[in-house]
């Protein structure tokens, strides 16, 4: 049992829990960045996996998720002039407990899977699954566009984590392509947030369903 790996993995999971239970968007953005960096460090603690491609992918990951995305999102936060997310359905304690339920579910899922090689820690795959589910749940349950972008990035962290836990050496090209997609997505969403905010004076996405191009007679 690699103790540093376990501490790293558990901190990735605890960041999920804080994310689920915190209403302060600024804190969420910073933690999302921290999670991205932690996840990018995973390949370095696995024995015999540090190839050049992995190093490049990790460095690009750290730059994008640790610096560029937080910067973009913090700027969007300032423009939108909001500080807090509204209370989600069921409240924060409920989503926190749901985060733990995701963890249990991921353990069950992990026990059903057959791996072609041994994973470096028996916590890695469950935490990666739990991170996907957390990201997806944040996208569903939160109403501000900004928090949904954060949820999307957490989802991506989970995918990267899963990849680096299972593969000896990821194809660099695939990894870079995913990162490019994420980058474009965050960029586009940043513009979308800016426009939603300018049109409606807020970034509540559940109000978007009231948009109509014709008025009922």
């Amino acid at each position, binding site marked *: *049992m690699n*103790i540093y790996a376990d501490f790293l993995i558990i901190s990735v*999971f605890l960041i999920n*829990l804080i994310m689920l239970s915190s209403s302060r968007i600024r804190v969420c953005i910073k933690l999302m960045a921290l999670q991205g960096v932690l996840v990018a460090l995973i390949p370095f603690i696995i024995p015999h996996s540090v190839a050049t491609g992995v190093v490049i992918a990790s460095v690009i990951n750290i730059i994008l998720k640790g610096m560029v995305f937080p910067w973009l999102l913090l700027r969007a936060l300032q423009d939108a002039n909001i500080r807090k997310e509204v209370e989600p359905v069921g409240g924060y304690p409920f989503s926190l407990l749901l*985060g733990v339920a995701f*963890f249990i579910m991921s353990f069950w899922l992990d026990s059903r899977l057959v791996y072609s090689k041994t994973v470096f820690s028996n916590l890695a795959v469950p935490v990666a699954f739990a991170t996907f589910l957390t990201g997806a749940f944040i996208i569903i349950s939160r109403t501000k566009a900004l928090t949904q972008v954060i949820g999307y990035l957490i989802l991506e962290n989970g995918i990267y984590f899963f990849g680096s836990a299972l593969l000896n050496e990821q194809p660099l090209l695939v990894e870079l392509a995913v990162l490019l997609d994420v980058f474009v997505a965050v960029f586009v969403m940043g513009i979308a947030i800016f426009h939603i905010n300018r049109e409606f004076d807020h970034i509540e996405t559940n109000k978007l369903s009231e948009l109509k191009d014709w008025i009922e007679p």
Partner: protein
Amino acid sequence: MSMKIAQFVLILMVSPFLFGVINRTKAFFAGRKGAPLFQLYYDIVKLLHKSAVYSKSTTWIFIAGPMVSLSAVIVASLIIPFAGWPSIISFDGDIILFFYLLGLARFFTCLAALDAGSSFEGMGASREVQFAVFAEPALFVSLAALARLTGKSSLTDIFGSPQIHPWVSYGPLLCLALGALFIVFLAENSRIPVDDPNTHLELTMIHEAMVLDHGGVDFAYILYGAAIKFWILGSLLTGIIFKESSYGWGVDTIIFILLMVLLSVIVGVVESALARLRLLKVPHFLIVALSLSLVAFIISLR
């Protein structure tokens, strides 16, 4: 055997001292001189010389409440291991007895509060029970995680087992359990993020509101019971951190008591640095403890 009795006497003697340490720490942060370190001993002695006054509307439950609570926590202190050395009573499954003794103490404190018939005390009892619903599972699950990790079901065996003490190998689990236990420790002892022990407004009190009508000897029992409860829950925390030295019982005892004093200083710092949570936010805080303990338990299953 003589060592075990000495441990027990030490717990009974030293535990009120820790409250003095907390008060001194808080006074230091507030720039005051603070009450003497032995203030709680003086208070208890003073109260023991007074006789209690009972309202005509109360029954024997009101008189029994403080006594039952105090004796329950004293029996619980017999089960708790001291400095990694075996406790006086230890058998397989004493962990369950430990939980139920704490539960019994709470149950009788609440019953006595309701028996007094004052609306404030009823409110206090209601809050105490409401928060206990969240705090007790967290305590239970985090100790269950430790029991699962060590494969033992008695507190002495759990805290003396080799799985805990070269502790780095199970670090993540123990850190999670420690975090959960610390939150429960603050909540159960009605310390600041949950309850303010110094509050003088009945509407904001939790634990203090339940004991408003007790006086004299009964109140001395309550204060002393609170001190011992602080010690036994605190020694669960220090028991995880503490590592037996090879110098024998005397040195271990001194180090352990110093750790408890350190824990009290930490509590004092937390109390000085944090404000009280709004009552509505307290369940959220305790659910954090519950989640941490659940995660620790799930990890221990692997």
